[in-house]
C-alpha cells in the first residue's frame, strides 16, 4: 500500500513547523528524516534507514497539532503548514513509556555492544523499569553463525523485513499474536534446522542483539574497521572488516553499488580461513625423491612427508631456475602459467606480463576458461565485447527478467536479492533451468527444461517471435547483420516440435516469447548452465540473437548479463589472463595490438595465441609443456576429469604453485610459495557489473608469507626481467596506459569512492553502466546474428551409464573449497560431500536420504552421501565440485566446446548405485562450529 501512495506523493518541498521552527521537508521524506537533517533526534527502534519503515515500536511518536493521537514520525510525511513537536511533554511521555515497557523485558545479560534500546533509554533518562518482566524464552544456539536470544527481542521486525523484504529469503516470520507474538524461523523451527541461508542480514538489522553473531563475536570491541570488498563471487559486495588482534571478528555489509549493505553467508562468515592452521607460512620445496603421482592422498597435516620448509631466497631461486632452464632448453612454448580469478587485477596483469615477456609465450590462462569462455566467445563474435551490457541492478528497471542456466540464490546470492526484489515489485521473472532452484518460487514462469536442450528451447522462443511478428524490425535493420540467416534457421524449430525435445509445453514457450519480446524492457542473465556445454557458445549465440531481434539491448533494464562467478574473473580477463588476448581483449594475433604492446613493454612478443587450460593439461601430459607456474588456481580439483589433470601436472618437470594452502594442486608442486589472502593485501578487483573496486589490507599476513605482487616481481627478476613494482598503485597506473576501458580511473578515485564502473576512458568520467546504447563495438557498429542448431552433449546416457551428472556449486562452498572448507561456519553448515538426487531416483536405488551412494562415469568413481532433492530432475544427479574426498571432476567429461574451449561440466553420463566407501572425513573444521571468536567476553 505504501508503494501506491509513494507514487502519488511528488517530491515537492513541504514547509512545516518542527519544534517551533519552520523547516522545509519533502513530501516523500518522513518527518523523522527531515528532523534528522535539522539535527533533531527522535528515538526510534523499528525504523532503520534502508528498511521499509513499519511504525510498530512507537518510540518515535510525535505530536501533530490537531490530531487526536500521536503519530509515528518514521511513517508520517509532512504536509504544508503541519505543526509537529517531537519533544512536547506528551510526546516524550509516550516515547519514554514505550522504551520503559521494552526495557522491562530485557535480559540481564547483554548480547551486543551497541544495544539501541539501551542507548535511547539512556538518552531519554528512562530509569529502572517499573513494570514486571516477561517470562523469557530459551536461547537457540542451533545455527553455527547466528545466536538467537529472543530474550532481547523487542519484536520490531527489522530482522523480518531484512529477511523477507531485502534478502527475500523468507525464513523469518512473526507468528502468534498479542504478547505471545514471536519471531520465528519457518515453522518456529530452531534456526539451524530452518531454511535459513545464514546471510546474517537479520543480525545486521537487529537493534538489541537478539540475533547476534554466534559465540559472542558481537561482544568483541574491534581495534579498527577496514573497508574492503568481498573475495568470493562476482557480485562484488563492499563490506567492512572488524579487526581485533589481527583477526577478523565480524564483517558488516557496506553501502556498495552492487550490494547496498547486503551480504551472503560467505561474505559475512567466511573469513577465518585466513587463520586456519593449514595456512602455509613459509616456502616449501619438494623433498628429493618424493614422487609425484595422480593418485596422491591429500592430508594437509602430513605435509612434511613430501615437503621441507626453506627460505624465500632458496625457494625463489629454485622456482625461477626451473622455469628459466626449461625455457632456455626447450623453448618458450614449453612453459605455461595459470593465473587466478581470485587475485587482484594488478596480480593478474603482472602474471600475464610475466608469462608473455618472461616465459615468452601466450600460454597463460585461468579459470574463466572453465566458466564463461563460451559466453565470451559468442559475445566477442556477435558484438565484440565480452562484458555485461547492463548491471545486475538493472533488474529493477526491467519489466521482464529472464534467468537461464543460473542459480543466483546459491552462486550470486546478493545479486539474486535484487531479482527477487524486482519480482516482488511486479517484474515478471522467468526462470529456465533443468533444476528447480529457489529463484523458481519467485518466478512468473518457471521452465524446467531437459538438460542439454537449451538451443531447442531458445530457438523455439525465437521461432515464436518471428512467427508472431514480435521482431523489432527497426533495431534489426539499423543495428544488426545476418538476420535473414537466423530467421531461416529458426524456422526449423516451432515450439510444438521443440516441446517434446525440451520438455516445456509449446504454449508456455510461446507465452514466454511474447512476454520477453513485448515488454518495455527485458533483460537476460545467465550462468554456467548456459556456458559449460559443448554447445555453450551456441547457447550464448541464441541469447544474443534473442536480445538483438527484439531490440532488448542498449537501454536500461535490458541487455545481456553473463553472471561472473569469481570475484575477479571479469578483471582477470580484462587484464589479459587469456591466451588469445592482451589486456583489454586486444588480440595477440592482431599486428596493431601486438605492436602497441611490444612498444609498451619494450620487447618482442609471441604472435601466436597460447594454449587454454585443458589444452595446457593435454600438452603437459604429452611432454610438450614441461614447466608451469600456477598462482591461486587449483586445477587438480577444478579441471574436468581431474585424474587426467593430476596426471598431467605430475608429469611436469617443474611446477611452481603459489597459494594459501597446500591445495590438491600444490601437492604436485616442486616449489610452493605461500601467498597472501585477500584481507592481507591491497588491490583492485572487477565485479560482474564492470565495477573496479578497491580491496584494502586489514590483516598482517601470518609467518613469512609475502604479498603476491612481490612474489611475481621476484620470480620475474630471477628469469631476466628488470622489474621493480613497489605497490599495486604502480601496476594499476601501468595498466591504465594500455587499457583504454580503465584509462580514466585513478588510484586516488578508487581510494575515495571504492568503486568505479568502466568504461571510464577519461579522468572524471562517471563510468558507463549501460553500454551498446547507440552501436556495438564491432567494425561495422552492428551486432552479428549467428544461428545455432541442435548439438547433443558429447556423452549421452546409455544402458551402462543411464543417468546424467550435473556439477556446480553450493552456497557455502567456494569453487574447490580451499578457502571455504577451512572457514568454520561454512564448514559446519556443509561438512560432507553430497549428491542431490530426486526422491523417485533414490527410491529406485532403494536408498534412503543420507545413505552413501556411488556415482561412476567412464572416467572415475566417487562415493558420497545422497541428499534427496525434489528440485533435481529425475534421471539426473547434481554434485558440487568442492569436495576433495568425492571430487565431482573425477567424473566429468573433458569434451570441449569448439569455440570457447570450455569443458562440458554440466552434462555427462553416470551410473548411480547404493552403497560404497564412506567418504573420508575431509571437513577441515570437523564440521563443528568454530570456537568462540575471541577470548574477550562481555565486559559486564
Amino acid at each position, binding site marked *: 500500500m505504501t508503494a*501506491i501512495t509513494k507514487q502519488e506523493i511528488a517530491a515537492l518541498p513541504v514547509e512545516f513547523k518542527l519544534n517551533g521552527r519552520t523547516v522545509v521537508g519533502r513530501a516523500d521524506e518522513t518527518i523523522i528524516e527531515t528532523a534528522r537533517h535539522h539535527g533533531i533526534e527522535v528515538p526510534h527502534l523499528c525504523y532503520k534507514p534502508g528498511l521499509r519503515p513499519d511504525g510498530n515500536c*512507537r518510540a518515535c511518536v510525535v505530536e501533530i497539532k490537531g490530531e487526536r493521537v500521536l503519530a509515528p514520525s518514521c511513517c508520517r510525511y509532512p504536509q504544508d503548514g503541519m505543526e509537529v513537536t517531537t519533544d512536547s511533554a*506528551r510526546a516524550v511521555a509516550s516515547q519514554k513509556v514505550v522504551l520503559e515497557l*521494552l526495557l522491562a523485558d530485557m535480559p540481564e545479560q547483554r548480547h551486543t555492544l551497541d544495544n539501541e534500546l539501551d542507548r535511547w533509554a539512556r538518552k531519554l533518562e528512562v530509569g529502572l523499569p517499573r513494570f514486571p518482566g516477561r517470562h523469557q524464552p530459551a536461547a537457540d544456539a542451533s545455527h553455527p553463525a547466528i545466536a538467537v536470544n529472543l530474550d532481547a527481542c523487542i519484536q520490531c521486525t527489522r530482522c523480518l523485513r531484512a529477511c523477507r523484504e531485502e534478502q527475500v529469503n523468507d525464513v523469518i516470520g512473526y507468528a502468534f*499474536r498479542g504478547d505471545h507474538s514471536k519471531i520465528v524461523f519457518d515453522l*518456529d523451527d530452531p534456526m539451524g534446522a530452518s*531454511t535459513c541461508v545464514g546471510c546474517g542480514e537479520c543480525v545486521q538489522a537487529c537493534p538489541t542483539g537478539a540475533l547476534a553473531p554466534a559465540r559472542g563475536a558481537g561482544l568483541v570491541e574491534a581495534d579498527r574497521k577496514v573497508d574492503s570488498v568481498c573475495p568470493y563471487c562476482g557480485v562484488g559486495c563492499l563490506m567492512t572488516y572488524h579487526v581485533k588482534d589481527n583477526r577478523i571478528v565480524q564483517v558488516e555489509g557496506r553501502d556498495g553499488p552492487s550490494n547496498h549493505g547486503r551480504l551472503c553467508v560467505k561474505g559475512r562468515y567466511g573469513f577465518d580461513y585466513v587463520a586456519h592452521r593449514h595456512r602455509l607460512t613459509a616456502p616449501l620445496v619438494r623433498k628429493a625423491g618424493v614422487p609425484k603421482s595422480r593418485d596422491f592422498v591429500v592430508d594437509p597435516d602430513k605435509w612434511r612427508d613430501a615437503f621441507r620448509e626453506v627460505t624465500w631466497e632458496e625457494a625463489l631461486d629454485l622456482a625461477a631456475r626451473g622455469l628459466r632452464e626449461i625455457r632456455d632448453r626447450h623453448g618458450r612454448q614449453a612453459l605455461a602459467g595459470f593465473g587466478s580469478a581470485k587475485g587482484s587485477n594488478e596480480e593478474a596483469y603482472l602474471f600475464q606480463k610475466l608469462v608473455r615477456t618472461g616465459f615468452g609465450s601466450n600460454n597463460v590462462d585461468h579459470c574463466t576458461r572453465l566458466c564463461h569462455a563460451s559466453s565470451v566467445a559468442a559475445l566477442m563474435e556477435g558484438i565484440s565485447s565480452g562484458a555485461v551490457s547492463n548491471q545486475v541492478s538493472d533488474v529493477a528497471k526491467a519489466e521482464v527478467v529472464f534467468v537461464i542456466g543460473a542459480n543466483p540464490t546459491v552462486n550470486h546470492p546478493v545479486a539474486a536479492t535484487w531479482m527477487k526484489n524486482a519480482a516482488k515489485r511486479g517484474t515478471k521473472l522467468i526462470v529456465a533451468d533443468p533444476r528447480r532452484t529457489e529463484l523458481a518460487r519467485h518466478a512468473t514462469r518457471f521452465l524446467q527444461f531437459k538438460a542439454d536442450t537449451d538451443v531447442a528451447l531458445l530457438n523455439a522462443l525465437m521461432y515464436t517471435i518471428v512467427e508472431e511478428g514480435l521482431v523489432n524490425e527497426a533495431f534489426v535493420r539499423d543495428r544488426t547483420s545476418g538476420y535473414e540467416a537466423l530467421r531461416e534457421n529458426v524456422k526449423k524449430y516451432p515450439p510444438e516440435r521443440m516441446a517434446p525435445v525440451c520438455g516445456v509445453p509449446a504454449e508456455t514457450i510461446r507465452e514466454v516469447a511474447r512476454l520477453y519480446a513485448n515488454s518495455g524492457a527485458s533483460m537476460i542473465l545467465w550462468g554456467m548452465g548456459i556456458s559449460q556445454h559443448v554447445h555453450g557458445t551456441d547457447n550464448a549465440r541464441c541469447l544474443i540473437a534473442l536480445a538483438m531481434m527484439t531490440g532488448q539491448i542498449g537501454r536500461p533494464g535490458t541487455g545481456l548479463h553473463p553472471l561472473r562467478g569469481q570475484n575477479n574473473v571479469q578483471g582477470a580477463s580484462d587484464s589479459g589472463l587469456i591466451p588469445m588476448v592482451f589486456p583489454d581483449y586486444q588480440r595477440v594475433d592482431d599486428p596493431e595490438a601486438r605492436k602497441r604492446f611490444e612498444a609498451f613493454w619494450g620487447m618482442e612478443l609471441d604472435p601466436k595465441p597460447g594454449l587454454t587450460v585443458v589444452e595446457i593439461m593435454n600438452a603437459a601430459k604429452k611432454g610438450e609443456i614441461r614447466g608451469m607456474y600456477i598462482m591461486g588456481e587449483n586445477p587438480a580439483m577444478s579441471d574436468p576429469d581431474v585424474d587426467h589433470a593430476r596426471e598431467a601436472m605430475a608429469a611436469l618437470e617443474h611446477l611452481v604453485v603459489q597459494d594459501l594452502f597446500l591445495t590438491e594442486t600444490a601437492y604436485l608442486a616442486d616449489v610452493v610459495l605461500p601467498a597472501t589472502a585477500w584481507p592481507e593485501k591491497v588491490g583492485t578487483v572487477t565485479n560482474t557489473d564492470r565495477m573496479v573496486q578497491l580491496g584494502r589490507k586489514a590483516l598482517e599476513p601470518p609467518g613469512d608469507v609475502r604479498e603476491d605482487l612481490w612474489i611475481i616481481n621476484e620470480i620475474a627478476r630471477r628469469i631476466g626481467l628488470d622489474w621493480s613494482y613497489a605497490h599495486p598503485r604502480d601496476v594499476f597506473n601501468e595498466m591504465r596506459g594500455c587499457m583504454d576501458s580503465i584509462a580514466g580511473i585513478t588510484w586516488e578515485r578508487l581510494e575515495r569512492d571504492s568503486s568505479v564502473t568502466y568504461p571510464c576512458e577519461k579522468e572524471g568520467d562517471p563510468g558507463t553502466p549501460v553500454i551498446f546504447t547507440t552501436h556495438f563495438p564491432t567494425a561495422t557498429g552492428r551486432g552479428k546474428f549467428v544461428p545455432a542448431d541442435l548439438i547433443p552433449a558429447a556423452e549421452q546416457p546409455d544402458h551402462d551409464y543411464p543417468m546424467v551428472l550435473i556439477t556446480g556449486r553450493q552456497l557455502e562452498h567456494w569453487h574447490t573449497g580451499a578457502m571455504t572448507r577451512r572457514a568454520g561456519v561454512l564448514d559446519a553448515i556443509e561438512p560432507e560431500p553430497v549428491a542431490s538426487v530426486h526422491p523417485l531416483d533414490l527410491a529406485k536405488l532403494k536408498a534412503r536420504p543420507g545413505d552413501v551412494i556411488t556415482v561412476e562415469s567412464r572416467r572415475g568413481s566417487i562415493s558420497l552421501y545422497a541428499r534427496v532433492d525434489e*528440485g533435481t530432475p529425475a534421471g539426473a544427479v547434481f554434485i558440487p565440485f568442492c569436495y576433495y574426498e568425492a571430487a565431482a571432476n573425477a567424473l566429468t567429461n573433458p569434451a570441449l566446446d569448439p569455440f570457447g574451449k570450455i569443458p562440458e561440466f554440466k552434462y555427462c553420463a553416470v551410473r548411480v548405485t547404493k552403497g560404497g566407501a564412506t567418504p573420508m572425513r575431509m571437513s577441515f573444521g570437523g564440521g563443528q562450529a568454530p570456537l568462540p571468536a575471541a577470548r574477550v567476553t562481555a565486559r559486564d
Partner: protein
Amino acid sequence: MNDRADAATPARRSKVRAAPKGRQTEPQALAEVRQLLGDAPRRRDLLIEHLHRIQDRYGSLADRHLVALAHEMRLAMTEVYEVATFYHHFDVVKDGAAAPPAVTVRVCDSLACELAGARGLLEKLPKALGKDVRVLHAPCIGRCEQAPAATVHRHPVPNATVEKIQALVSARSLAHPPARDRATFAPESFIEPLDTPGAGSTVSPAYVGYDTYRKGGGYRLVAECLAGGHDAESIIQKMEHSGLRGLGGAGFPAGRKWRIVRAEPQPKMVAINIDEGEPGTFKDRVYLERDPHRFLEGMLVAAWAVQGGACYIYLRDEYHGCRAILEKELARLKDDPPCALPPIELRRGAGAYICGEESAMIESIEGKRGMPRLRPPYVAQVGLFGYPTLEHNFETVYWVRDILEKGPEWFAGFGRNGRKGLRSFSVSGRVKKPGMHLAPAGITVRELIDEYCGGMLDGHRFYGYLPGGASGGILPAAMADIPLDFDTLNKYGCFIGSAAVVILSDRDRATDAARNLLAFFKEESCGQCTPCRVGTAKALALMERRDWDQPLLNELSQAMMDASICGLGQAAPNPILCALKYFPQERG
C-alpha cells in the same frame, strides 16, 4: 565419541543433511492438500480459506500440511505459519504431536458470560466431559444475551449448563442447527419494545429467504439504481441527510464516506465488516440470522453509488449459522440476480477480535495476519488490495434500503434527548430481558433498562454500566442519565461504539470487570505495536496486584491511548481509567 568407531556406524551420518535446508514437502501431504484445494485458485488472499479447508477436514493444521500448502501456494513456510498461528480457530500441530480431540467445547468468558457464571462452567466441564473433549475459554462469541454461552464444536449453547453441554456432546450434536427461510421480517418491528428475540428462542430463528424478500419489494431499489432510475448524487445526499453513521463503532457519517470513495479513482472495492467481536455486541447476528438480504441490497446500492467493483463480506468464524444462511442466499441471489451483480465474495474469519478493525479486516481478507495498518493512508484511499475501499459495518448498510425507500427523514425522525436516529442496542448483564433492542438514539441507560429490558434482575441493584462494549469505558449508576449516542459520552472518557451495553449490579465490581476486559485485550492484541502488545500485558499484571499503582497505570494508559496504532490499544485503557476515576471506593 570415538572417531574411528564413528566412521563405520550410521552415527557417522549425523552431520550430513539428507535434504536441502529446512523442512521438505512430503509428497503424501502435498497430494492431500491438492485434493482438498481442488481447482480453487492458489492466490495469496485465499490462504485463510485454504487453512480452513485443512482444519475442517483434519481437525488441525499439521506441520506437514502447512509445508505442503506453502509449496502449493508458492509461499514461504513462515508466511503460512505466521498466519495460521495468528487466528484462534486454527490448531497448529507440530512434530508429531497429537491433534486436539475431535470435539472442542468453547465457553465464552467475556464480561456478560463471566457475570453469568462462565468461570464455574470452565472449572467443571473438563472433568464432566472427560479427556476426549477439549474445553477452551473463548473471547466473546456474540451471544451475550444468552449468557453464559458456549459452543459444542459449532453448536451454540445458549444459557449453557454442564448438563446441556454434556447432552450435546454425548449426542455428537456438533453442527449449527439449520435455519428455515420461512419468516417475514421488518426491522421496525424491533422499534417497539418486544420480547427479546434471542432469549429462550432457538439458536436458528427462521429468516427471510430470497423469494420472500423479493416479494416484499426487496432488490427493487438496487435494480432501479442500476437501471438509471436514481442518480448517485441524490442517493448520497439522502444518506447524508439521514444522519446515518457507521454503526461498527467509529460513527463516521455514512453518506460522507460514500462521497469520499466516489471521488477516488477506479478500481474500487467494497468490504462489509461482519466480524462482530466487541464483547457485548450481537446486533449484526440478530439481524443477519433473520433478514440477510436487506444488508446485501444495501451493500449493492453502496457499491453502485461509489462505483465500486468487487464486494467482499467478512464474516466472523463464530457465526456458523449465519455463514450457512449467507452461502445459501448468496447462491440464490447469484442464480437469479435482480440486476447485474458485481463479484461478491464471502470470506470467513478465523477467530480474531482485531479483524473487526477495518484495516485489520482488510489484511485478513488479503490472507494475512490481521494487523491493523497505519493511517494515513486511509482505507478509503488505499484499502483492499491497495485500492480505494468503501468499508462498512453490516448494520450501516442494513439500513440503506429503508432510509432510501422511506426517506432520510424517517430515520432522522427517531431520537430522544436531542439526538436523532435509531440505535440497535445489544444489552446484556444483570437485566431481566437482555437482548437486541432497537431504540431511539439518545436514550439513557436508565430508560433503556426500564423501558426495554424489563428492569434489573430480581435481587440486583443497578451499579454501573458499559455503554459501548469492552472498549467504551465503565460508568457508575450515578451517571445513568447521559443520552447514549455518538459524541455524548466522550467527555466522560467513554463512547457508545457498537452500542453494546452491559449492565452491572451491586454484586459486581468495576475493578473485576476492568480486569476481565484487560485480559481480553491482552489476548486479542495483534502484537504489532509496543504500547498495545506490551502495554496490555503489563497493565493486566499491575491490575492483578492487590494495590493498584495508580500513577503508573495512568501514565501507561496515556501512552497506550496516545501511541497505539489502532483503536484496540487506544481504547484498552478506558476500563482502567474509568475504574480508577468512577469507582475509587472499590480500592479502599
